[in-house]
């Protein structure tokens, strides 16, 4: 469903993502873990076709993101980091626009719009410009946009960042509900989130894949909690100390 092979991104000789190979199947919620600047967002940008890799490839739903970009993008719903939205639009206009671009028509369009609006409780703010919405609502509009065409693959870059505990809980519930039929990749640096929603966790630092396992095994192997594991694998090697890229 989602396969990457030796996915690599270099900027001016600096390697941000280094030969990342992983695969993921529907029904899985893959947690992408790593310190800030580890290359999580860059990987997601490559998988969704926003930037092209320096080397390697990513296959989404059987379509190579570089050679068959549009077909791959059609089966992806993507929430970019910080949930960028057009501030002057209202959520209603924005979702209508996304429905147009996604080619949703007639009854199905109506159904999908109603469903995501209900799921994310956007009803009360539909006619308000996005500019004036709270962070929580903005994030939810971003999620609604990603889920609108009922994609097989959802890629969510820090979906709960900046939300209050109730909102976080709600989003996690939603991810769990959807996870049965879909393949979901979330990136986060919040460890409790991995425990709460992910069926598998990948830890990367400095662009390299360090661990690929279930959260349960991770904890068992680490002989303690996730935090210990995370700190151990991301800091013990001197090669991984130069963080701070993005």
């Amino acid at each position, binding site marked *: 469903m989602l396969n990457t092979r030796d996915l690599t991104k270099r900027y001016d000789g600096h390697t941000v993502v280094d030969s990342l190979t992983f695969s993921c199947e529907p029904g899985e919620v893959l947690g992408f873990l790593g310190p800030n600047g580890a290359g999580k967002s860059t990987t997601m940008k490559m998988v969704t076709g*926003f*930037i092209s890799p320096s080397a390697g490839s990513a296959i989404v739903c059987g379509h190579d993101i570089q050679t068959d970009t*549009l077909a791959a993008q059609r089966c992806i719903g993507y929430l*970019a980091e910080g949930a960028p939205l057009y501030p002057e639009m209202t959520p209603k*206009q924005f979702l209508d*626009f996304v429905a*147009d*671009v996604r080619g949703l028509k007639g009854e199905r369009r109506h159904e999908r719009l109603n469903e995501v609006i209900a799921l994310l409780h956007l009803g009360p703010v539909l006619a308000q*410009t996005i500019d004036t919405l709270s962070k929580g609502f903005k994030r939810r509009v971003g999620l609604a*946009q990603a889920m609108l065409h009922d994609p097989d693959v959802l890629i969510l870059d820090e979906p709960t960042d900046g939300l209050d505990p109730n909102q976080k809980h709600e989003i996690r519930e939603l991810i769990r509900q959807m996870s049965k039929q879909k393949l979901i990749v979330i990136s986060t640096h919040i460890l409790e989130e991995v425990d709460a929603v992910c069926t598998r966790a990948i830890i990367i630092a400095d662009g390299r894949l360090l661990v690929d396992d279930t959260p349960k095994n991770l904890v068992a192997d680490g002989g303690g909690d996730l935090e210990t594991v995370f700190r151990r694998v991301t800091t013990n090697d001197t090669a991984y100390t130069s963080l701070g890229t993005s």
Partner: protein
Amino acid sequence: MNLVKALFRRELRSYFATPVAYVFIVIFLILMGTFTFYLGGFFERGQADLRPFFDFHPWLYLFLLPAISMRLWAEERKTGTVEFLMTLPVTPWQAVLGKFLAAWAFAGIALALTFPIWITVNYLGSPDNGAILAGYVGSFLMAGGFLAIGSCLSAFTRNQVIAFVITVVVCFGFLLSGFPLVLNMFSGWAPQIVVDGIASLSFLTHFSNISRGVIELRDLVYFALVIGTFLYANTVVLGWKKAD
């Protein structure tokens, strides 16, 4: 095509969702009127045509249209929405075209709102309405050229001020490329064919041909080429700069 239409509608609507559209149109109309009546001597000339009106279009466009085009891509890059846009199943061509057409349509709306001057001149005398129509066509095409250049340059930067200034300078070059100011820089060392080539790039020559009421194929082809070339360049620039 439906995709281009969706992008076009979103973009055009965004102009009117903020005061940008209204401020622009009001200022545009006020300046047009001022230039035509005071600097152009519309009444004093005593002739029933719109020459003083069209003569100022290139100079007004030079400063006003880059203000429209500067936000096209610079703003998307600044707010990060370019990432949202380019991960939708949309090709760079569709995105560039949809946005450009919206900006062009907006300029067209502003231009169309100058119709009272056409009514005025028809009330005062009996002008050659064919020539006036040609003037409007030429002016609209020239606006397309300015906007295509501006759209392309705004993809280079995430800073709208930079996009504005660079666009004004480049458009100024295009306007003046038929004048000695620009040609003298080349005539000393470049072969005559290059100098002629540069001279024929001038917006002003092609526009004044059309606005005199002579719509010639080569002037139409010229503007089509300018627009096509810069929009193509726009997709290329977008390809390598969008993620910075």
